[in-house]
């Protein structure tokens, strides 16, 4: 008697649908999570459709119109114009592109090696493997993140690629640390010991037994970190080590506008608020995800 595979897949599918509904119930229990999700979706959509939704798409690059320079917010330019007459709203919307790309790429690159390192070190806790991996991460963690990134970008040519590389390099140890903590406590759990007693392979135990139990913490941290990386990227740009003009970037805009404070405040305040808005969105979303993914006794 062979079980009908279609029937099994059908059941699995229904189960997944139910899990999704349950997850949404938990997520939507806190309205702030919804606010976060909406903010993040707005920012992502704006970034993707920037050329179509921004009022003056041509202002994204090296565009100059001194006749309109430094105009305060008006119906024509909702957030005003900058020193060379470019529409700030347009540049903020295009700025989201760089910020988001920075956030997603850095976290996407930093998380996997950090997670693997943490899992392996945690599983082999109190062995030389643990010592080796965790001492290396300690070295990275000992250097203040922004300083390390600045040092790297200062040695290498200042461009977007190296900025991302620098932030990635300083970011993976945080994932190693996080996952190490989880894995080293899970390796004592009975379900891990049951797998060991039965003779399951080490990769099976690490990736099939331990990893799924770390996912909720990892996802939460990734979401929160996108916000922090955006701030770091903006900080790098602010000191001139990130995105280079004329690429529209929120950090650079804040930095350029700072020269005209406080009279032409909109040049600094608007991109700064855009950063705050984005980071806030990711933070609220991260909190919501944590509630949603938590294993709960029914």
């Amino acid at each position: 008697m062979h079980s009908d595979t279609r029937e099994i897949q059908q059941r699995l599918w229904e189960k997944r649908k139910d899990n999704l509904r349950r997850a949404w119930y938990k997520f939507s229990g806190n309205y702030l999570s919804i606010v976060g999700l909406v903010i993040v979706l707005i920012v992502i959509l704006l970034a993707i459709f920037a050329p179509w939704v921004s009022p003056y798409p041509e202002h994204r690059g090296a565009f100059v119109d001194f006749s309109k320079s430094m105009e305060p917010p008006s119906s024509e330019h909702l957030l005003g114009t900058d020193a060379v007459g470019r529409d700030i709203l347009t540049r903020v919307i295009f700025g989201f592109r760089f910020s988001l790309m920075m956030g997603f790429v850095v976290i996407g690159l930093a998380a996997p090696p950090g997670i693997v390192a943490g899992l392996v070190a945690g599983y082999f806790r109190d062995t030389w493997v643990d010592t080796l991996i965790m001492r290396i991460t300690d070295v990275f963690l000992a250097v203040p993140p922004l300083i390390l990134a600045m040092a790297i970008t200062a040695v290498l040519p200042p461009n977007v690629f190296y900025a991302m590389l620098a932030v990635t390099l300083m970011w993976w140890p945080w994932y190693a640390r996080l996952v190490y903590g989880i894995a080293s406590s899970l390796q004592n759990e009975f379900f891990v010991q049951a797998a060991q007693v039965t003779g399951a392979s080490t990769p099976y135990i690490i990736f099939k037994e331990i990893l799924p139990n770390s996912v909720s913490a990892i996802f939460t941290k990734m979401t929160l970190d996108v916000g922090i990386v955006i701030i770091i990227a903006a900080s790098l740009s602010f000191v001139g080590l990130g995105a280079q003009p004329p690429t529209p970037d929120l950090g650079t805009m804040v930095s350029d506008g700072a020269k005209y404070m406080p009279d032409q405040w909109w040049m600094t305040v608007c991109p700064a608020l855009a950063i705050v808005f984005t980071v806030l969105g990711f933070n609220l979303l991260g909190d919501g995800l944590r509630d949603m993914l938590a294993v709960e006794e029914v």
Partner: protein
Amino acid sequence: MTDTGKLLDVRDLCVSYRTYEGKLKVVDGLTLEVRHGEKVGLVGETGCGKTTTMRAILGILPRPAGQVDSGEIIFKGNNVLQMKQKEIQRIRGVAITAIFQNPTAALNPVFTIGQQLYDVIRSQEWRKSGKRLSGKEVHDRAVKALKEAALHDPERLLSNYPVQLSGGMKQRVCIALAMVSDAELLIADEPGTALDVTIQDQILRLSMFMMSKRNTATLYIEHSLGVIREWMDRVYVMYAGRTVEVANSVDIFRSPRHPYTRGLLEAVPKLTGGGIARGIMGRVPEYIDPPGGCRFHPRCEYRMDICTKEKPPFFDLGDEHKVACYHSGS
């Protein structure tokens, strides 16, 4: 309407939790009473609503999910459910006190035993008489309380942290904490479960001795039928949010009447051997859509038509033995 005999009178209590699945009616029409100085056991399996009942009485239901839907909890003639938060605080910890299952979780790990005991003694006295005690008085009372709980070297113990004590000692400290107020009612939630039998034996002997001395009544929540039989005066058996049988602790073990009580008793492994009964068939019902009528009917071998339709009332079998069952009641 003060009934002098009754210290605690719970009438038709309904408590529910809101969850994703819907509203869970965890306690549904529970009735029980505790008289002055009486030792009452509340026995039932996991998920029958024992702990929820305790929380409702103490006013510590998890918020916002848990809520009391209807019923009355009358303590010394006053309905606790209609009291203001301030009035409840004057009762809780002073007139009603509690011991919990896990002594490790009940004591705060970052404060010494002394600090925790002093705080309780000070606030008790403040709530009771509005008096502020001097440091010396507080210390003396703390030492006395620990001595009474049969703890050696109380002076040194006061400066110890909970981690430095064994499970049995921690539970003794919890008993000392609960007893400083000379409360009239002690609610205990399985205080011996986390301990070994020899230690549980000591803890039970100690707490019963202290309660008899003070004439403290107790509502003792317990899943171990043996403990109930050996130490309690009267027993309520609880199933799926309702009390199904009540009797004194001799009768209920000699002649259990409710099919659930019988099944439960048979399932207890006996020291005399002879194997263990299969237990009760089926499983505890889901609270989202509990069976109508008698909640036990899907698992009952004596099920009749009426059991599926109407909630059985309490049938009086004499000698304070009551059972909520159409089969064995009539």
